[in-house]
């Protein structure tokens, strides 16, 4: 005879408890094993002492950190003014590329060329070309600032990446959505604005945030044409101390920004899913 329903439920709960406990034990044991291997193993490497002194010097770290943070403020500002420009540019390019109006054909062709050219060359090369090239035209202050043109180069390259992300999002919206909107009498541009774009932007939030995290790091490339931001400052301190610790400190500063940024992105995506979807399949 089968056990009573309550007994079956109790048995099932007990089984699930056992499975959970076993998972926790295995996870803890493997974590301890890996940590032990790193903590005990790395110091046994032949040159570890020298590496520790030249990369992980606590005193040098504390000494250079305030200067690095101050320099990092410039990175934050470049990031802050580039981000809205990049999103605006990317959105306009993506919409133009998806447009069907014959009058916009030249704009469409231009956007295709723009995206191909920008994506086909490393960011650092664009920063050199635009950052050194445009001020070379003999512009007056403040229009000859490498900071300005370095930022422009970042906006142009990232605008192309972001445009492709937006375009993928726009194209992923099912044709039925457009049909429904048009059948209600909405114009093509109203359909784009109210129905397609809001869904497309939500859908591409994760890759967009990914691009933002990349941008946050690539801002440091602007230092190569002059401005003293964190990477440059770390280089200066490294030369002064004859020690690499400032680079490690700079890396730590970057992580303090990029890791929370990634978590915020995950949280935004999860919140959106909870709001609109009935059930979440794990």
């Amino acid at each position: 005879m089968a056990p009573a329903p309550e007994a079956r439920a109790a048995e099932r709960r007990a089984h699930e408890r056992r499975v959970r406990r076993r998972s926790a034990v295995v996870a803890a044991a493997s974590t301890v094993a890996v940590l032990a291997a790193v903590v005990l193993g790395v110091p046994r490497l032949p040159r570890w002492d020298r590496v520790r002194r030249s990369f992980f010097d606590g005193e040098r770290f504390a000494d250079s950190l305030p200067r690095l943070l101050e320099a990092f403020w410039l990175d934050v500002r470049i990031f802050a003014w580039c981000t809205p420009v990049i999103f605006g540019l990317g959105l306009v390019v993506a919409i133009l590329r998806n447009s069907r109006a014959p009058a916009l054909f030249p704009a469409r062709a231009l956007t295709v060329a723009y995206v191909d050219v920008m994506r086909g060359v490393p960011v650092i090369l664009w920063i050199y070309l635009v950052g050194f090239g445009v001020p070379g035209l003999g512009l007056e202050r403040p229009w000859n600032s490498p900071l300005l043109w370095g930022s422009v180069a970042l906006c142009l390259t990232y605008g192309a990446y972001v445009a492709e992300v937006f375009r993928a999002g726009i194209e992923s919206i099912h044709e039925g959505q457009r049909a429904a909107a048009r059948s209600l009498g909405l114009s093509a541009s109203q359909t784009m604005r109210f129905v397609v774009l809001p869904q497309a932007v939500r859908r591409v939030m994760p890759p967009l945030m990914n691009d933002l995290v990349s941008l946050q790091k690539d801002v440091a490339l602007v230092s190569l044409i002059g401005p003293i931001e964190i990477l440059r400052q770390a280089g200066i301190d490294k030369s002064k101390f004859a020690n690499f610790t400032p680079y490690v400190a700079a890396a730590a500063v970057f992580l303090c920004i990029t890791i929370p940024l990634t978590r915020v992105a995950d949280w935004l995506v999860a919140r959106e899913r909870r709001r609109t979807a009935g059930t979440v399949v794990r």
Partner: protein
Amino acid sequence: MSVAAPRLRLDAVRKAFGDAVVLDGVSLDVAAGEVVTFIGASGSGKTTLLRCINLLEPIDDGAILLDGDEISRVGRDPNPVRRRIGIVFQAFNLFPHMSVRRNVTLALTEVLGLDREEARARADGLLERFGLAGRADAYPDRLSGGQQQRVAIVRALAMSPEVLLLDEVTSALDPALVGEVLDVVRELRGSGITMLIATHEMAFAREISDRVCFLDGGRIAESGPPERIFGDAADERTRRFLRRAVPPRD
């Protein structure tokens, strides 16, 4: 028939996708308030015909007239016409990022130019009428298929269209949910709205229609009142289709 122009006239409508001729000269007059159903095998052109009437697909030849006015004329702005001809799709096509209420009010505020209060009042009134009052703030993914399709019907009705096109509105539903959607269509019959319905629900077509059109190979092979089509079809193709589509009664 009265001498007034029919509400909707199809005059030798032709439509092909590449080499595939989907509509091969469809002609039909539909009077105001009439309910016409289209039956026929998958691929017989039912969906394409409805999409052409809503101007979602341009036709290749022929003409579509609404109250004697040729709406299919090349170069004509389709948006004013679409306000007068609503369509409900097989796959609902609700906007998933908007609440049920916003799904209904979007075109009211953006196309008809109603202010938010008016649009909201109209939407809530219709949602209430079709038993959806409690779901106005929910998002479509939280609703059952039957509820979603009823919202889609409300969304189309909110524009006060003169003609409503229903494209296999129950084909994507669980059998248990078909009834609630068909009840909505029953309620609309006799409200003065003209309905063109593509369906695979033969019993429903028989019950609701003033006229049934059997589509075959992109043409109306036979049309007439439901009693005649389902009871005593003249065309051999119609009889063959119905033998397969309608289970024999015992």
